[in-house]
């Protein structure tokens, strides 16, 4: 496994060791080894069906691995329930928005923040009466440009705003490691920039894994990259290096240059 040469010490926050998943005869994930370093901006790319979302589902505990280990900050989380992993700081977003359709951005974030800060099972005080919760919620609403729609029902929001909420929710969980599954997928071009800006401004101590097809975004955002093909890791390294790697080019476009690599 290549570890990137970073300025600060490359402490590994999330790692998959020989992770595999079989569905009957289908090998969805094959002996994947992946190390995410602290402060990573790690892109995970690969053709459709390469098993990227499956890998995310394995890492977050939605799927049980057939073999292998997952470690979060040195702790073995292979058999841990999904909600417990979130408590430890491993958070994800979904490729297709998974929101609470009858709530509003305000109530959604209030609730998620309350849950994170330990007030989730409090049944006596109404939602939104704790100062710390209110402050954090306000921060997030502003950071994600949701203040103007904060009291609109989620199901009535535009797709771009919904996507912003999707990511805001994950931030509300105070992630240490954030897995973004195609954050700009389906977002109309008018709202893309807002979203990209927000993603670029995410705190630097949050380690981010980004699944993306958009190579522009990958090259402008990622410092590390892993290429996944047919459920197995093809190669890993810095995006600039991999762009010229013939194996990668072949997988994507059959020996032509990857679009965007000229920028590098």
């Amino acid at each position: 496994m290549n570890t990137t040469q970073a300025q600060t010490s490359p402490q590994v926050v999330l790692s998959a060791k020989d992770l595999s998943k079989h569905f009957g005869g289908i090998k969805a994930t094959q002996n994947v080894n992946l190390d995410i370093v602290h402060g990573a901006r790690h892109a995970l790319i690969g053709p459709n069906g390469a098993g990227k979302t499956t890998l995310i589902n394995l890492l977050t505990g939605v799927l049980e691995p057939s073999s292998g280990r997952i470690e979060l900050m040195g702790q073995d989380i292979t058999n841990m329930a999904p909600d417990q992993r979130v408590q430890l700081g491993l958070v994800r977003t979904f490729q297709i928005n998974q929101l609470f359709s009858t709530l509003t951005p305000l109530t959604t974030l209030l609730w998620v923040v309350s849950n994170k800060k330990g007030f989730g099972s409090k049944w006596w005080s109404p939602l939104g009466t704790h100062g710390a919760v209110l402050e954090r919620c306000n921060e997030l609403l502003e950071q994600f440009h949701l203040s103007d729609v904060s009291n609109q029902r989620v199901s009535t929001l535009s797709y771009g705003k919904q996507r912003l909420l999707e990511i805001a929710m994950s931030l509300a969980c105070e992630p240490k490691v954030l897995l973004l599954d195609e954050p700009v997928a389906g977002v109309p071009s008018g709202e893309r920039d807002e979203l990209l800006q927000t993603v670029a401004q995410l705190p630097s101590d949050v380690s981010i894994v980004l699944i993306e097809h958009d190579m522009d975004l990958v090259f402008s955002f990622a410092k590390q990259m892993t290429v996944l093909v047919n459920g197995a890791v093809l190669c890993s390294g810095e995006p600039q290096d991999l762009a010229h790697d013939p194996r990668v080019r072949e997988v994507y476009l059959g020996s032509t240059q990857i679009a965007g690599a000229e920028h590098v």
Partner: protein
Amino acid sequence: MMGPNNMLEIKRLNRTKIWEWVVLSLMLASPFLFAERAMMINEIAITALFAISLDLILGYSGIVSLGHAAFFGWGVYAAGIFSKLVNPDPIVGLIVVMGSSLVLGLICSLTILRGSDLTRLMVTLGVSLIGLELANQLRDLTGGADGLQGVVMAPIFGVFEFDLSAKVASIYSVLICVLVLLFVRRLVRSPFGFGLVAIRDNSLRARAVGLNVSHRLMVIYAISASLAGLSGALLAQTTGFASLDVFSFDRSADVMLMLVIGGVGWLYGGVLGAVVFKLIQSQLSSITPQYWMFWIGLFLVILVLTGRDRIKEWFAGVSA
């Protein structure tokens, strides 16, 4: 700090609206306003409480249960048998029944955690049918098909006797119903309550933001069972009688229907539905029993075909 708009919105969410004050006052006043229909008021209060308990799991958590009568029936028989064999004090009886229903609910909650809507439907229905059979078979204890007779309660706090006019009974039931309503209202506005809505809207996402969905469901199911048991206990205590039909599928379907009439997911729907249902039932069922079932069926079919959501949306606009 929090933007002014948002602070206003939070205050608005948590405030007791004027119409709520009106409704609550009306409820508390009803045993006195309608003293000549005390028996009816009593029944409505008990049924409303039962409906509110179902709303917690159906409206707020999204669990479709066809067997909530299991806990209602347990409450009825447990309260009746307890007062006959152990202690006729009503308050003690209520506490014992609520506690035992809570435990029963916790145990049964294990059955609803896994599986699809159909599986849940099945196991909840199964539990209520088991209850029915048990009550039927344990004849010595329950009176079997003849029902449990002769439940005589001691006066409440040693002072207020249950009399034939049902005046004390109606005040008793209404008071408890309102207290529970206030408690549940508090519950659904808290982070705990919002967690339920999150589970209903998207349990996958709820899990993905760190909520232990199974835990939450178990707790709310147990609370709901406890309240359903409470309403059953009230029935036994105020009418002095228990019969097998408290476990029947009809009961579960009726209370679901009430919620649908009044609107799921806003608590007062249980109250509204109970009032409307009971009033119509007392009018129609005296004509012929068959007619009653037919009209309910037709109402359900039309309601669903035209879209429950439209009615719910309208209510959401009104009650906000």
